[in-house]
């Protein structure tokens, strides 16, 4: 083996499927001087890749996972290491069958072939299954298994043959040196390598390696139990490694996967078993491998029984022994998504962690493109490691959340389902007031936000038939008709919404104007006091974010974005800051709380607490002003995400409670109601057709398609301008439309309400695909109490994007009629925005 080099362009740490995929794609993209190191031997250094069950199921509700997995399949196929065997997810309960109906919608919209199968059809494909234990199945023919170690070897060979990669096994990282917050060198037990970039692809060890550089990779290693049972004659008789579809016994959280003459039986059903990265044994100390810990049989007892139920003939054979049993380690994250991208703490230190076999090569390509071009073909928005707020980057949060997440791996997770662990972390000054009003709290970025208030139950009687309940349990889970009553009360009188969870940061300095022009699509050199909503584009001209920017002074801007978008946006703004000191960025999130006061009586309410002139003439829409309430100076911004007259009021955090109480007390005269995020984020928003980042807006769609193109393009240069200009010059492949549901009645007579994510079909029941190959689906769904209809937002190709066009939406395997109510950003409620501008 040659000597470890003293210098490199990039050092990739970890030679599992992820590290190998990264070096492969960096090499393909023209990088040179790539060094790959691992503390273990090659080709199996002892990480999670070495014990993986190596199968790839495709169906998922997540677009990001679907795209990455489908890309990985293609790459594994190109490498010749993919064996297609099909996969059947089987249900033992009707609840799971319903989940399959939902999953079918997801398969369709991501272009994955799946079909329902009866127990008899499952039996035909898998003759040793006990079809009496199951009620049905969800079959995906494209499922397969891979040789991930061989894939890694081939990927390394590509880079080595090209002369741009050197790989060094048995090299342990001792330190990562940084200088002024930038990676400088990787120090190993075999020498120091000065490097421009370092990539952490260390799986379960990643947090430990990141810590050496002062960065955080918030994942927690957890045990996944797996046994291998054999020899089994019927399996041994097949050609090759696998001849039968893989069974996922979803309701017992288990799988059965043939591996030659053995059946591998794995489980996500046992208790969460967390292992700290520092407690993973070394290669020498480990009984099997560092990531194959001794099997704890007591955690598998129920699984023995469940496996016998579903495959009694082969797994009940007394001559078939448990030849191998492990507590295999894998990486879990607080929200289930991988941890990709440059770390928040250290420049040019990249994380590619918490990536499983089915995502390895796709992730490798995504991150290599991102490192090369600043943007990737597949959007990695959800996996961006910079998504975590500071509190969530620590071990504590990750341990709490991943412990809760483990049993959700095969679980049925409702789209609105809330986490129960590590709650009440961030609370606004109004928290106790809200509790007293019976708030039902949902969490975003650690913030507790009232979704609705039980004290508003009395409004149900007030609005009678205009508030529609949902008879189906799934449709009404994590939901209340009170949301719709709050909505109507706000539109009739005035509502108060706690918006403290918004992320806020101030941009100041002599270079602020030029810098803000570069960042935003909308014109930023506006009058002092103006507030502007703007898309933030990536380098290819699609969505990085959308947010509101206030010009508070000549060289002072305030950026206001979503709570969960904040950390990511702040990193984007910081990354693009000029190299000198002409611009400073200060996070104000913890310094300010925010109340939204909206409704026809909002002006009356505000005028009753301040001497400032709140009239339309003195305080027009889209402007900000400092006003005083009880002597306290607050910033008021005349804007609305719910389409009503009113203001967002930004108050220093410690003064918030007093102002909140004052407004609440004064509001009684005007019939004020506390209004939750159910209205702000869904019903009010959808009636106004307002787009939401990562629902309607992502890197797959441009501002023209999203209906957010401005009448004119500003002169100043800005990130993504070229792509934006190109999008303006072309016919859009799709346009974001508002659709209304015309009839909710299912075949069984129960009214059903779409939750978002459902495919949109032609009247013939065909999927709708645009010229760029994207299928149409509901990016958001929710009630529109003021228009008396359920609303869906969806991108439609031009031939369907016509007001009045009749289409269908598929929900739980049934089709419901919908009509295109608006094309582009025109809202279905108050289309001329008269209420906001009153």
């Amino acid at each position, binding site marked *: 083996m040659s000597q470890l080099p003293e210098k490199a362009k990039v050092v990739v740490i970890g030679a599992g499927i992820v590290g190998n995929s990264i070096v492969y794609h960096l090499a393909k993209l023209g990088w040179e001087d790539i060094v790959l190191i691992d503390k273990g031997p090659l080709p199996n250094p002892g990480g999670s890749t070495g014990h993986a069950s190596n199968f790839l199921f495709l169906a998922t509700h997540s677009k990001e996972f679907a795209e990455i997995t489908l890309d990985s399949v293609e790459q594994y196929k190109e490498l010749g290491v993919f064996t297609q065997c099909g996969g059947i997810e089987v249900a033992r309960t009707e609840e799971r069958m319903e989940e399959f109906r939902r999953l079918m919608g997801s398969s369709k919209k991501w272009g994955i072939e799946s079909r329902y199968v009866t127990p008899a059809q499952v039996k035909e494909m898998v003759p040793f299954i006990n079809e009496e234990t199951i009620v049905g199945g969800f079959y995906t023919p494209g499922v397969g298994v891979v040789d991930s170690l061989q894939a890694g070897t081939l990927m390394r060979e590509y880079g080595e043959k090209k002369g741009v990669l050197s790989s060094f096994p048995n090299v342990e990282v001792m330190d990562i040196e940084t200088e002024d917050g930038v990676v400088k060198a990787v120090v190993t037990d075999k020498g120091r390598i000065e490097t421009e970039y370092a990539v952490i692809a260390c799986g379960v060890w990643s947090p430990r390696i990141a810590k050496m550089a002062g960065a955080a990779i918030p994942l927690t290693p957890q045990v996944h139990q797996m046994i291998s049972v054999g020899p089994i004659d019927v399996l041994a008789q097949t050609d090759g490694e696998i001849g039968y579809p893989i069974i996922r016994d979803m309701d017992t959280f288990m799988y059965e996967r043939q591996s030659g003459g053995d059946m591998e039986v794995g489980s996500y059903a046992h208790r969460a078993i967390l292992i700290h990265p520092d*407690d993973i044994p070394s290669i*020498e*100390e480990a009984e*099997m491998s560092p990531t194959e810990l001794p099997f704890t049989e007591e955690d598998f007892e129920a699984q023995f029984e469940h496996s*016998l139920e579903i495959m009694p003939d082969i*797994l009940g054979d*007394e001559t078939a022994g*448990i030849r191998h049993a492990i507590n295999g380690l894998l990486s879990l994250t607080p929200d289930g998504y991988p941890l990709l991208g440059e770390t928040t703490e250290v420049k040019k230190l990249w994380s590619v962690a918490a990536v499983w076999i089915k995502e390895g090569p796709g992730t490798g390509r995504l991150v290599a493109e991102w490192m090369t071009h600043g943007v990737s073909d597949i959007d990695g928005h959800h996996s961006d490691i910079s998504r975590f707020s500071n509190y969530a980057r620590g071990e504590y949060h990750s341990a709490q959340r991943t412990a809760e997440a483990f049993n959700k791996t095969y679980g049925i997770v409702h789209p609105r389902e809330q986490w129960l662990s590590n709650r009440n972390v961030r609370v606004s000054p109004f928290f106790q007031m809200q509790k007293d009003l019976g708030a039902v709290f949902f969490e975003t970025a650690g913030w507790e936000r009232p979704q609705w208030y039980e004290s508003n139950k009395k409004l149900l009687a007030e609005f009678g038939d205009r508030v529609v309940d949902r008879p189906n349990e799934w449709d009404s889970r994590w939901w209340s008709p009170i949301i719709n009553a709050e909505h109507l009360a706000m539109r009739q009188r005035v509502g108060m919404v706690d918006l403290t969870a918004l992320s806020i940061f101030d941009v100041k300095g002599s270079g602020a104007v030029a810098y803000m022009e570069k960042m935003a699509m909308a014109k930023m050199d506006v009058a002092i006091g103006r507030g502007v909503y703007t898309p933030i584009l990536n380098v290819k001209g699609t969505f990085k974010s959308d947010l509101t920017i206030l010009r508070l002074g000549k060289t002072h801007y305030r950026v206001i974005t979503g709570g969960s978008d904040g950390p990511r946006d702040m990193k984007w703004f910081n990354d693009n800051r000029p190299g000198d000191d002409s611009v400073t960025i200060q996070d104000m999130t913890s310094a300010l709380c925010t109340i939204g006061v909206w409704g026809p009586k909002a002006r009356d309410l505000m005028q009753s607490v301040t001497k400032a002139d709140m009239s339309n003439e003195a305080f027009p829409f889209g402007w900000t002003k400092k006003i005083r309430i009880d002597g306290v100076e607050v910033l008021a911004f005349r804007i609305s995400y719910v389409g009503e007259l009113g203001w967002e009021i930004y108050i220093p955090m410690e003064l918030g409670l007093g102002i909140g109480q004052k407004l609440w007390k004064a509001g009684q005269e005007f019939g004020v109601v506390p209004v939750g995020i159910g209205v702000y984020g869904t019903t009010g928003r959808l009636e106004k057709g307002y787009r939401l980042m990562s629902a309607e807006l992502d890197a797959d769609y441009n501002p023209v398609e999203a209906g957010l193109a401005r009448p004119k393009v500003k002169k100043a240069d800005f990130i993504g301008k070229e792509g934006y200009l190109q999008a303006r010059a072309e016919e859009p492949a799709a346009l974001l439309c508002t659709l209304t549901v015309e009839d909710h009645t299912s075949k069984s007579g129960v009214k059903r309400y779409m939750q978002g994510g459902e495919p949109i079909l032609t009247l013939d029941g065909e999927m709708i695909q645009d010229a760029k190959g994207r299928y149409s689906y509901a990016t958001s769904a929710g009630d529109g109490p003021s228009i008396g209809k359920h609303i869906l937002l969806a991108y439609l190709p031009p031939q369907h994007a016509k007001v009045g066009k009749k289409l269908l939406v598929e929900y739980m395997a049934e089709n419901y009629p919908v009509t295109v109510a608006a094309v582009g950003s025109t809202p279905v409620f108050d289309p001329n925005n008269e209420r906001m501008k009153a």
Partner: protein
Amino acid sequence: MDILVCIKRVPVTGAKVVLTADEQAIDASYLSFAPGPHEECAIEEAVQIVKKHGGSSTALTLGPDAAVEQLRYAASMGVDDLILLETDEEWPPMPTARAITAAIQAQEKKFDALLFGNESADAGGYQVGIRVAHALGMPVVTGIKKLEFEAGTAVAHRQTPAGWEIYEVPLPAVFTIKEGINVPRYPSIPGKLKAKKKVIQRIAPEEGDVGLEKVRLVVPEAEASDVTILGHGAAAAPQMVELLGELGLV
């Protein structure tokens, strides 16, 4: 034929043995426990003897409550009855043998053969089987790699560098089994489920005079590797042939 097989709960170590800070035990934080390899063969042998000749098999261990895991493992391989001589910790060979002897004498069932591993996988004392045989006044043959029974006697085969020694002994007798006598089975899933339901006879033995006492454990220095790389690929063939010649193998 009623067979007793005595086993010990021992840690399964990796390449490097790590001791606890007090040097009294192996640090087993990330290790599993198992009967030693010789004992696993003894269990298999017991199960096969009963299958062939009828009767019953019983597994016995002395150790903490956690050693139930090893008894159930024996049951999952097919052993019928389980006895735990429950102690707080591992005992030295003398009191262990005494406790096992007392337990055997207290059983209603009179065993035809007592099987032990040749030596424990951790301490390697080579004592317990012989001490029990002595105390019960039974013949003992150690290092057995083949065992046959016919009408009240057993024929035990033992491998030595010079060849096979074959012993014919009257029953009841004690045999210490060596790895290689059979290929122990992997427990099946039904075996695991049956084992879970087995009732364990628990006995609290008296320790008394301990005899040999453990002072502390020491991990010996690893011997330096004496691997010599002769060369790579076909080019290494002449050196290989030469070496084999030197060793008198060709």
